[in-house]
């Protein structure tokens, strides 16, 4: 905690919105809460704000600690802080928990004010577009007309891209990391297996498990184990676990025998104890549905024609779930529109997880890019 590049202790805040939000599905959220954290200081011109969009299992706690005894900093703490690549001495950083989440923003596990019981299965399905609309309202709430940048990895990158389409005049820079312009059939297939694991858990109760005092822990655990396989590369798993046996010899059982199994079970158990299954279902669906080119007959260049922001697109060589080829599609569509775009393909062994790692070259790229961003009034 004495680390001078740490934000230190941060306190989440809640913004309540009483103006209804019409969703892409046609459903309406009459009112909702968004929980968020901010790091750094908003300047007088309100021109130095950077929004962080989280991925599938992320939340508003991107940096710093929640208490003196907190052992674990926020999920992107290696990026955000005083003197870090996203330097909070210069920028005002906003991180939020998306609607439908399970860390304080309105979601399936929160109380539906109209019914005075948890939303459960009745909480609407959200899209990337809906999230961006709600993020724009959070910016309004903070008095920010234009964001200096929106940053996101994976599903977060999709939100950063959508910002440039939904609010082209409200975003100066979009940083799209380990992302894609839509999911491939194979990528969606992993999501479907994850959802089936949850939905077929006997304790799912059609999504209304809160009323039964249980959670579909087994399903969520398997969903997360599957996810973890896809976030790592074959090489990274090989280097980390290989065929290492936990107790040095084969036991001819279905208990944990290989180190890899121990890792997956640990990750699955940990996640199932703290994450909400209904949120997981909705996050994966938002991933599946996102496809800005759909209404342009699959022509991504036509879909991105209205973007005005400058772009930085980053992919990782060993990421097979959001492969470099998918990032290059975004870059190509931006080139076709003569947009300002730089693209880095970072050599990294960690697969999709690489976007959260403090690889020196990756962080040098982000540091250099943020330094280049001109803040009005600076």
């Amino acid at each position, binding site marked *: 905690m004495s680390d001078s590049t740490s934000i230190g202790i941060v306190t989440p805040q809640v913004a309540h919105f009483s103006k209804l939000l019409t969703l892409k599905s046609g459903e309406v959220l009459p009112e909702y809460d968004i929980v968020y954290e901010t790091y750094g200081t908003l300047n007088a011109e309100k021109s130095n704000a950077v929004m962080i969009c989280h991925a599938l299992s992320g939340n508003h706690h991107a940096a710093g600690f929640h208490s003196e005894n907190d052992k674990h900093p926020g999920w992107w703490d290696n990026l955000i802080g005083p003197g870090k690549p996203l330097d909070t001495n210069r920028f005002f950083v906003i991180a939020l928990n998306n609607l439908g989440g399970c860390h304080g923003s309105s979601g399936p596990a929160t109380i539906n004010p109209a019914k005075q019981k948890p939303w459960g299965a009745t909480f609407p399905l959200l899209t990337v577009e809906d999230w961006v609309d709600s993020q724009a309202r959070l910016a309004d709430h903070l008095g920010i007309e234009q964001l200096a940048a929106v940053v996101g990895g994976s599903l977060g990158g999709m939100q950063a891209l959508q910002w440039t389409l939904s609010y082209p005049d409200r975003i100066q820079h979009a940083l799209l990391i380990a992302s894609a312009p839509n999911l491939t059939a194979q990528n969606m297939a992993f999501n479907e297996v994850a959802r089936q694991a949850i939905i077929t858990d006997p304790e799912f109760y059609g999504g209304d498990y809160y009323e039964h005092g249980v959670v579909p822990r087994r399903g969520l655990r398997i969903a997360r184990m599957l996810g973890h396989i896809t976030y790592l590369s074959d090489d990274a798993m090989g280097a980390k676990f290989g065929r290492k046996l936990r107790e040095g010899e084969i036991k001819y059982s279905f208990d944990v025998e290989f180190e890899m199994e121990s890792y997956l079970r640990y990750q699955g158990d940990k996640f199932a104890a703290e994450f909400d299954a209904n949120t997981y279902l909705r996050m994966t669906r938002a991933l599946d549905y996102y496809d800005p080119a759909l209404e342009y007959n699959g022509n991504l260049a036509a879909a991105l024609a209205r973007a005005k922001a400058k772009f930085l697109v980053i992919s990782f060589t060993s990421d097979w779930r959001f492969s470099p080829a998918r990032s290059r599609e975004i870059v190509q569509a931006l080139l076709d529109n003569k947009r300002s*775009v730089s693209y880095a393909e970072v050599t990294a062994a960690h697969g999709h997880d690489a976007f959260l790692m403090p690889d020196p070259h990756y962080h040098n790229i982000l540091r250099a890019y943020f330094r280049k961003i001109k803040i009005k009034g600076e």
Partner: protein
Amino acid sequence: MSNSQPNFVEAAKKRRDFALIAKWIGAGAKVLDLGCGDGALLGYLRDTLEVRGYGVEKDDANWLASMQNNIDVIQMDLEAGLSGFDDKSFDVVILSQTLQAVQNTEGIIQEMLRVGREAIVTFPNFGYWPLRSQLIAGQMPVSENLPYQWYDTPNVHLCTIKDFDEFCEKHNIRVKERFVLTNGHPISFMPNLLGSLAMYRLQQSE
């Protein structure tokens, strides 16, 4: 903060080839520079002609230098071709003093002419007399344009002006214009012997 811009126009005063490349490019053109290094050429073209320029660079350090110089730069390996780039999606594709270091020479030139309406290729002329004389003296040539020793050179496809003319003819490539320079001065007499840097403006033959 380091928002200060390098002065590409000032720095390019020593680079006569940059000024000549600029003569072949229209104001506001969409330009792709393959192997853009630190982005000096694109920076110069942007600041003098307001071109919409993009660099292509494989090397991490060069990529970062270009990005820091406010150049839009795409990280990819030229040797894999320019797949993903549509036909004629750029006005000009440039390969500036990089030809000698590429493996798949034929493939890259063909890709340049596919993606660009025009291509500009510049390379150190291996027929330049000081290089010939070094070879006659029994050693691999080393010069300002070719500063490497035989054992550490990235150059794999060195050629002379005569070679490249033949290459264009054989591959049915139209040479729209050619400049030859030595120490920044134009050479028209015996260019393959007296010229140090060759510059070609190319187009696909109809």
